[in-house]
């Protein structure tokens, strides 16, 4: 009361009334149930709405900081349970409830929040994002979990049993309570920032939905989604499915299962590598054998086993032709020789010989005949001549002289008369057997 007037200022009165609200032990923290009215979500701001029931209505304000913790999205007409305090807003003179927390009435608020987040993330497609593949042979595994829980022990045990060469690095985190979500997110990001990890396991043991709630927080979900490292999530028991499980790349029912998913069995892998090598040798051996068989098969062809067959038929052909040529040579020679022999044999001088003999015969004959004919002619003439000579002989005048006649010739003239004579003439007296000379002594003419 700064003013001594009996009249109070509105401000003074209002302050007074406000004080009455503020110091009232009941109104300082009340639990109120009602329906949301005039609710219009103002993103990233204080929320102004009313709560009402059938008969009454109260204005409500929820500051941004408090509203951020609401795990579900309030809607008009929704029945809600709120906690808060009643106070007066001096500027409007209206009293209102300052809501600290709000959860849905009826079904569990956490469940509601879970369903709402799941729906939201589903709508965003977060669950459908491609899952990252887990490296089969992680060198370094980051584990975000409680430092003291059984989870890390189970994981360590399993990894050492299976694949002791993998380095496990624990990123200790609160896994329960209001700070847990932020802590988990921080460690997920931390592991990602360091970067030299192959796999990230987040996990905690079983518990109530409240216990597991951090893993249903949107920030955790988004941290998992944003993680560059593939995330194995193992939260609660197998029946519990947290949002973290849904967005993680792999979900494991138990921490042991998570470790088994994260690492192989070293001896198995060594064995496998050995087997691969063995298979390599066998496959190579087989390949060589098959190729050897192929080559051997080709080599078995008679082309290689009996290459002479390549030209044998030619040998026969050539030999045949050659033999035929030789036979033909003999044939031709014989034929020619026969022809020549035949003609040479037929070329006989016998005809000519015969002819000569005939001619000689004929010639001899002609000689005989010419001889005879000639002799005949001579003989005939001789006869004719002889006959004439005989006749002449008979007629010879000398024959008369043999009877004593003689004749006188003078100078070869027969002297027929004495008148032809003169004395002393020498005359010739011719006798038959000779002549005599005489001299005319006298002439006596008669």
């Amino acid at each position, binding site marked *: 009361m700064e003013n001594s007037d009996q009249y109070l200022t509105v401000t003074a009165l209002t302050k007074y009334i406000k004080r009455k609200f503020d110091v009232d032990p009941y109104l300082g923290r009340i639990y109120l149930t009602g329906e949301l009215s005039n609710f219009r979500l103002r993103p990233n701001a204080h929320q102004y709405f009313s709560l009402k029931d059938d008969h009454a209505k109260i204005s409500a304000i929820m500051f941004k900081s408090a509203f951020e913790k609401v795990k579900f999205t309030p809607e008009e007409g929704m029945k809600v349970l709120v906690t808060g305090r009643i106070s007066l807003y001096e500027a409007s003179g209206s009293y209102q409830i300052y809501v600290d927390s709000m959860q849905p009435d009826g079904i569990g608020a956490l469940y509601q929040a879970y369903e709402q987040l799941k729906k939201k993330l589903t709508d965003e497609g977060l669950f459908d994002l491609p899952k990252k593949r887990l*490296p*089969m*042979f992680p*060198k370094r595994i*980051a584990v975000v979990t*409680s*430092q*003291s*829980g*059984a989870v*890390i*022990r189970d994981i*360590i045990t399993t990894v*050492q049993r299976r694949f*002791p*060469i*993998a*380095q*496990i*690095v*624990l*990123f*200790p985190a609160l896994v329960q309570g209001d700070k847990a979500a932020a802590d988990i997110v921080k460690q997920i990001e*931390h*592991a990602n920032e*360091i970067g030299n990890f192959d796999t990230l396991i987040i996990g905690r*043991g079983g518990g109530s939905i409240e216990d597991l709630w951090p893993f249903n927080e949107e920030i955790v979900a988004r941290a998992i989604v944003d993680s560059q490292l593939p995330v194995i999530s193992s939260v609660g028991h197998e029946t519990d499915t947290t949002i973290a499980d849904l967005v993680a790349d792999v979900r494991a029912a138990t921490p042991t299962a998570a470790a088994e998913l994260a690492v192989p069995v*070293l001896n198995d*892998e*060594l064995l496998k*590598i*050995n087997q*691969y*090598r063995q*298979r*390599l*040798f066998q*496959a*190579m051996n*087989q*390949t*060589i054998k*098959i*190729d050897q068989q192929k080559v051997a098969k080709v080599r078995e062809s008679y082309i290689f086993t009996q290459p002479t067959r390549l030209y044998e038929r030619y040998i026969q052909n050539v030999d045949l032709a050659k033999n035929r040529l030789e036979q033909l040579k003999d044939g031709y020679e014989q034929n020619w020789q026969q022809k020549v022999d035949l003609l040479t044999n037929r070329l006989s001088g016998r005809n000519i010989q015969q002819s000569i003999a005939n001619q000689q015969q004929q010639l001899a004959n002609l000689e005989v005949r010419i001889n005879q004919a000639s002799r005949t002619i001579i003989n005939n003439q001789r006869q004719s001549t002889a006959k004439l000579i005989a006749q002449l002989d008979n007629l010879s005048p000398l024959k008369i002289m043999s009877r004593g006649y003689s004749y006188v010739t003078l100078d070869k003239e027969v002297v027929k008369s004495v008148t032809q004579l003169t004395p002393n003439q020498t005359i010739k007296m011719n006798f038959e057997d000779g002549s005599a000379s005489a001299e005319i002594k006298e002439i006596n003419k008669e």
Partner: protein
Amino acid sequence: MTEKVSFEEQLEKLQAIVSQLEQGDVPLEKALTQFQDGVKLSKQLQDTLDNAEKTLTKLMDDNNQEINFDADPKEE
């Protein structure tokens, strides 16, 4: 472990080589090369696994220091 090619990639390569060779239709020279590569890979892989040391679990503190972590056998 190799630098660029991860163990897993090498293993996959080895598996691929084995598969291919076992299918039998790889030309001989290529098969031989692959075979040699495969054997080499398998050796490398084996060496990698054989030579890797067993590790102790570490705890990453807020200062990015890895400190030895003794799993406390305490129930939650």
